[in-house]
Protein backbone atom coordinates (compact mmCIF):
# COMPACT_ATOMS: atom_id res chain seq x y z
CA UNK A 1 0.00 0.00 0.00
CA UNK A 2 2.83 2.29 0.92
CA UNK A 3 4.69 1.46 -2.27
CA UNK A 4 1.63 2.21 -4.38
CA UNK A 5 1.34 5.66 -2.78
CA UNK A 6 5.01 6.38 -3.58
CA UNK A 7 4.47 5.56 -7.22
CA UNK A 8 1.48 7.89 -7.41
CA UNK A 9 3.63 10.71 -6.10
CA UNK A 10 6.32 9.96 -8.73
CA UNK A 11 3.76 10.08 -11.50
CA UNK A 12 2.57 13.53 -10.43
CA UNK A 13 6.15 14.71 -10.14
CA UNK A 14 6.78 14.13 -13.85
CA UNK A 15 3.69 16.10 -14.85
CA UNK A 16 4.90 18.95 -12.65
CA UNK A 17 8.39 18.82 -14.16
CA UNK A 18 7.01 18.96 -17.70
CA UNK A 19 4.70 21.84 -16.82
CA UNK A 20 7.58 23.66 -15.14
CA UNK A 21 9.77 23.25 -18.24
CA UNK A 22 7.02 24.60 -20.48
CA UNK A 23 6.39 27.54 -18.15
CA UNK A 24 10.11 28.39 -18.05
CA UNK A 25 10.39 28.22 -21.86
CA UNK A 26 7.35 30.46 -22.36
CA UNK A 27 8.62 32.88 -19.71
CA UNK A 28 12.01 33.10 -21.45
CA UNK A 29 10.41 33.99 -24.77
CA UNK A 30 8.14 36.53 -23.10
CA UNK A 31 11.03 38.16 -21.23
CA UNK A 32 13.11 38.45 -24.40
CA UNK A 33 10.14 39.78 -26.33
CA UNK A 34 9.16 42.30 -23.69
CA UNK A 35 12.73 43.56 -23.39
CA UNK A 36 12.76 43.91 -27.13
CA UNK A 37 9.35 45.50 -27.49
CA UNK A 38 9.59 47.98 -24.66
CA UNK A 39 10.29 51.00 -26.78
CA UNK A 40 10.73 54.24 -24.92
CA UNK A 41 11.58 57.85 -25.48
CA UNK A 42 14.59 58.79 -23.43
CA UNK A 43 15.70 62.26 -22.48
CA UNK A 44 19.49 62.19 -22.26
CA UNK A 45 21.24 64.66 -19.99
CA UNK A 46 24.89 64.34 -20.95
CA UNK A 47 25.67 63.66 -24.55
CA UNK A 48 28.94 61.88 -25.15
CA UNK A 49 29.60 63.67 -28.38
CA UNK A 50 32.33 66.20 -29.06
CA UNK A 51 29.79 68.30 -30.96
CA UNK A 52 27.80 69.12 -27.83
CA UNK A 53 25.93 72.35 -28.57
CA UNK A 54 26.10 73.29 -24.88
CA UNK A 55 22.64 74.75 -24.77
CA UNK A 56 22.66 75.27 -21.03
CA UNK A 57 23.21 78.91 -20.20
Amino acid at each position, binding site marked *: MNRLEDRTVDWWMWILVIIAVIVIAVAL*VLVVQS*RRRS*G*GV*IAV*SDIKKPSDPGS*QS
Partner: protein
Amino acid sequence: MSLLIRASALTKKPVVTLDGEDIAQVKDVLYEGSGGSVIGFTLSGRGLFAGPKNVALPWSEVVGCGRDAVMIASDQALQEQQDLVASHDIGERNVLGARLVTDTGVDLGAVVDVIVEAADVADVVGYEVEASAALGGDARNVLIPLPDALSVSGEALMVPAAALDFVSDDLAGFGAAVDDFRASLRGEN
Protein backbone atom coordinates in the same frame (compact mmCIF):
# COMPACT_ATOMS: atom_id res chain seq x y z
CA MET B 1 10.59 69.72 -45.97
CA SER B 2 9.88 68.19 -42.61
CA LEU B 3 7.63 65.52 -41.28
CA LEU B 4 5.98 65.17 -37.89
CA ILE B 5 6.14 61.66 -36.48
CA ARG B 6 5.04 60.15 -33.21
CA ALA B 7 7.99 58.54 -31.44
CA SER B 8 5.84 55.44 -30.92
CA ALA B 9 5.65 55.13 -34.70
CA LEU B 10 9.44 55.08 -34.87
CA THR B 11 9.93 52.37 -32.28
CA LYS B 12 9.81 48.87 -33.79
CA LYS B 13 10.54 50.22 -37.27
CA PRO B 14 13.08 48.10 -39.12
CA VAL B 15 16.52 49.59 -39.70
CA VAL B 16 17.38 48.74 -43.32
CA THR B 17 20.63 49.28 -45.19
CA LEU B 18 20.66 50.61 -48.74
CA ASP B 19 21.67 47.06 -49.67
CA GLY B 20 18.24 45.92 -48.54
CA GLU B 21 19.17 44.12 -45.35
CA ASP B 22 17.16 44.64 -42.15
CA ILE B 23 19.94 44.62 -39.58
CA ALA B 24 17.98 45.81 -36.53
CA GLN B 25 14.87 47.55 -35.37
CA VAL B 26 14.39 50.73 -33.38
CA LYS B 27 13.96 50.22 -29.65
CA ASP B 28 14.19 53.62 -27.93
CA VAL B 29 14.31 57.14 -29.28
CA LEU B 30 17.05 59.17 -27.56
CA TYR B 31 16.85 62.94 -27.42
CA GLU B 32 18.79 65.64 -25.70
CA GLY B 33 16.90 66.62 -22.57
CA SER B 34 17.66 70.34 -22.66
CA GLY B 35 17.56 71.16 -26.36
CA GLY B 36 15.18 68.54 -27.70
CA SER B 37 17.33 67.41 -30.61
CA VAL B 38 17.10 63.72 -31.39
CA ILE B 39 20.43 61.99 -30.78
CA GLY B 40 19.59 58.62 -32.21
CA PHE B 41 18.06 55.25 -31.51
CA THR B 42 18.87 52.24 -29.40
CA LEU B 43 18.32 49.03 -31.31
CA SER B 44 17.10 45.51 -30.85
CA GLY B 45 17.45 42.47 -33.06
CA ARG B 46 14.95 41.40 -35.68
CA GLY B 47 14.37 37.72 -34.90
CA LEU B 48 11.80 36.20 -32.55
CA PHE B 49 14.47 35.46 -29.96
CA ALA B 50 16.58 38.55 -30.55
CA GLY B 51 17.10 40.81 -27.58
CA PRO B 52 18.41 44.37 -27.29
CA LYS B 53 21.64 45.19 -29.11
CA ASN B 54 24.75 46.89 -27.73
CA VAL B 55 24.97 49.13 -30.76
CA ALA B 56 23.00 52.30 -31.34
CA LEU B 57 22.23 54.41 -34.38
CA PRO B 58 23.12 58.13 -34.29
CA TRP B 59 20.60 60.37 -36.09
CA SER B 60 23.41 61.85 -38.22
CA GLU B 61 23.80 58.45 -39.90
CA VAL B 62 20.12 58.12 -40.82
CA VAL B 63 19.69 58.43 -44.58
CA GLY B 64 15.91 58.34 -44.58
CA CYS B 65 13.24 58.01 -41.95
CA GLY B 66 9.91 57.18 -43.52
CA ARG B 67 6.58 55.48 -42.91
CA ASP B 68 7.95 51.96 -43.15
CA ALA B 69 11.65 51.93 -42.28
CA VAL B 70 14.69 53.79 -41.07
CA MET B 71 17.28 53.73 -43.84
CA ILE B 72 21.04 53.74 -43.27
CA ALA B 73 23.96 53.47 -45.70
CA SER B 74 25.45 50.30 -44.24
CA ASP B 75 26.05 48.57 -40.93
CA GLN B 76 29.09 50.87 -40.55
CA ALA B 77 26.58 53.52 -39.43
CA LEU B 78 26.02 51.77 -36.10
CA GLN B 79 28.02 52.81 -33.03
CA GLU B 80 28.66 51.27 -29.69
CA GLN B 81 25.81 52.40 -27.45
CA GLN B 82 28.11 53.65 -24.69
CA ASP B 83 29.81 55.94 -27.20
CA LEU B 84 26.50 57.63 -27.90
CA VAL B 85 24.91 57.86 -24.48
CA ALA B 86 25.72 57.05 -20.87
CA SER B 87 24.05 53.80 -19.92
CA HIS B 88 22.56 55.13 -16.68
CA ASP B 89 20.38 57.47 -18.70
CA ILE B 90 18.58 54.64 -20.41
CA GLY B 91 15.70 53.19 -18.50
CA GLU B 92 15.76 55.90 -15.86
CA ARG B 93 14.75 58.72 -18.09
CA ASN B 94 11.94 57.35 -20.17
CA VAL B 95 9.59 60.31 -20.54
CA LEU B 96 6.63 58.12 -21.46
CA GLY B 97 4.44 58.07 -18.37
CA ALA B 98 6.06 61.15 -16.81
CA ARG B 99 3.80 64.04 -15.74
CA LEU B 100 3.69 67.20 -17.83
CA VAL B 101 3.50 70.29 -15.62
CA THR B 102 3.30 73.95 -16.63
CA ASP B 103 5.56 76.62 -15.16
CA THR B 104 2.47 77.91 -13.34
CA GLY B 105 2.15 74.56 -11.59
CA VAL B 106 -0.74 72.99 -13.46
CA ASP B 107 -0.56 69.25 -14.07
CA LEU B 108 -1.55 68.67 -17.70
CA GLY B 109 -1.45 64.87 -17.59
CA ALA B 110 0.78 61.91 -18.32
CA VAL B 111 2.93 61.93 -21.45
CA VAL B 112 1.82 59.10 -23.73
CA ASP B 113 3.87 59.97 -26.78
CA VAL B 114 6.46 62.40 -28.09
CA ILE B 115 6.19 64.26 -31.40
CA VAL B 116 9.38 64.38 -33.45
CA GLU B 117 9.97 66.70 -36.37
CA ALA B 118 12.19 64.74 -38.73
CA ALA B 119 14.38 66.60 -41.20
CA ASP B 120 18.17 66.77 -41.59
CA VAL B 121 18.16 67.51 -37.89
CA ALA B 122 15.39 65.90 -35.87
CA ASP B 123 13.81 67.72 -32.96
CA VAL B 124 11.31 66.88 -30.29
CA VAL B 125 8.63 69.53 -30.84
CA GLY B 126 5.72 68.34 -28.73
CA TYR B 127 4.28 65.93 -26.22
CA GLU B 128 1.07 63.99 -26.53
CA VAL B 129 -0.64 63.82 -23.14
CA GLU B 130 -3.66 62.05 -21.82
CA ALA B 131 -5.52 65.20 -20.88
CA SER B 132 -5.96 65.86 -17.19
CA ALA B 133 -8.83 67.88 -15.65
CA ALA B 134 -6.93 71.09 -16.48
CA LEU B 135 -7.35 70.33 -20.19
CA GLY B 136 -10.98 69.27 -20.05
CA GLY B 137 -10.09 65.75 -19.00
CA ASP B 138 -12.57 63.90 -21.20
CA ALA B 139 -10.05 61.07 -21.72
CA ARG B 140 -8.84 62.37 -25.06
CA ASN B 141 -5.23 62.85 -26.05
CA VAL B 142 -3.98 66.32 -26.90
CA LEU B 143 -0.73 67.58 -28.40
CA ILE B 144 1.23 70.23 -26.52
CA PRO B 145 3.91 72.23 -28.37
CA LEU B 146 7.32 72.72 -26.80
CA PRO B 147 9.67 75.70 -26.71
CA ASP B 148 13.19 75.44 -28.16
CA ALA B 149 14.68 74.82 -24.73
CA LEU B 150 13.16 72.14 -22.55
CA SER B 151 13.20 71.18 -18.94
CA VAL B 152 13.14 67.49 -18.16
CA SER B 153 13.70 65.33 -15.12
CA GLY B 154 13.02 61.70 -14.38
CA GLU B 155 9.69 62.53 -12.78
CA ALA B 156 8.23 65.49 -14.64
CA LEU B 157 8.48 67.65 -17.73
CA MET B 158 7.98 71.41 -17.65
CA VAL B 159 6.32 73.54 -20.32
CA PRO B 160 5.41 77.24 -20.29
CA ALA B 161 1.73 77.83 -19.49
CA ALA B 162 1.45 79.76 -22.77
CA ALA B 163 1.69 76.42 -24.59
CA LEU B 164 -1.92 75.78 -23.60
CA ASP B 165 -3.05 78.37 -26.17
CA PHE B 166 -1.49 76.30 -28.95
CA VAL B 167 -2.79 72.83 -28.12
CA SER B 168 -4.00 70.69 -31.03
CA ASP B 169 -5.93 67.47 -31.31
CA ASP B 170 -4.09 65.86 -34.18
CA LEU B 171 -0.81 65.98 -36.07
CA ALA B 172 -2.32 67.70 -39.11
CA GLY B 173 -2.32 71.21 -37.66
CA PHE B 174 0.34 70.64 -35.07
CA GLY B 175 3.34 71.80 -37.10
CA ALA B 176 1.77 75.23 -37.50
CA ALA B 177 0.84 75.31 -33.80
CA VAL B 178 4.48 74.66 -32.83
CA ASP B 179 5.70 77.41 -35.14
CA ASP B 180 3.09 79.87 -33.82
CA PHE B 181 3.91 79.01 -30.22
CA ARG B 182 7.65 79.46 -30.69
CA ALA B 183 7.10 82.71 -32.59
CA SER B 184 4.96 84.04 -29.75
CA LEU B 185 7.65 83.10 -27.20
CA ARG B 186 10.26 84.97 -29.20
CA GLY B 187 7.89 87.95 -29.47
CA GLU B 188 7.53 88.15 -25.70
CA ASN B 189 11.24 88.03 -25.06
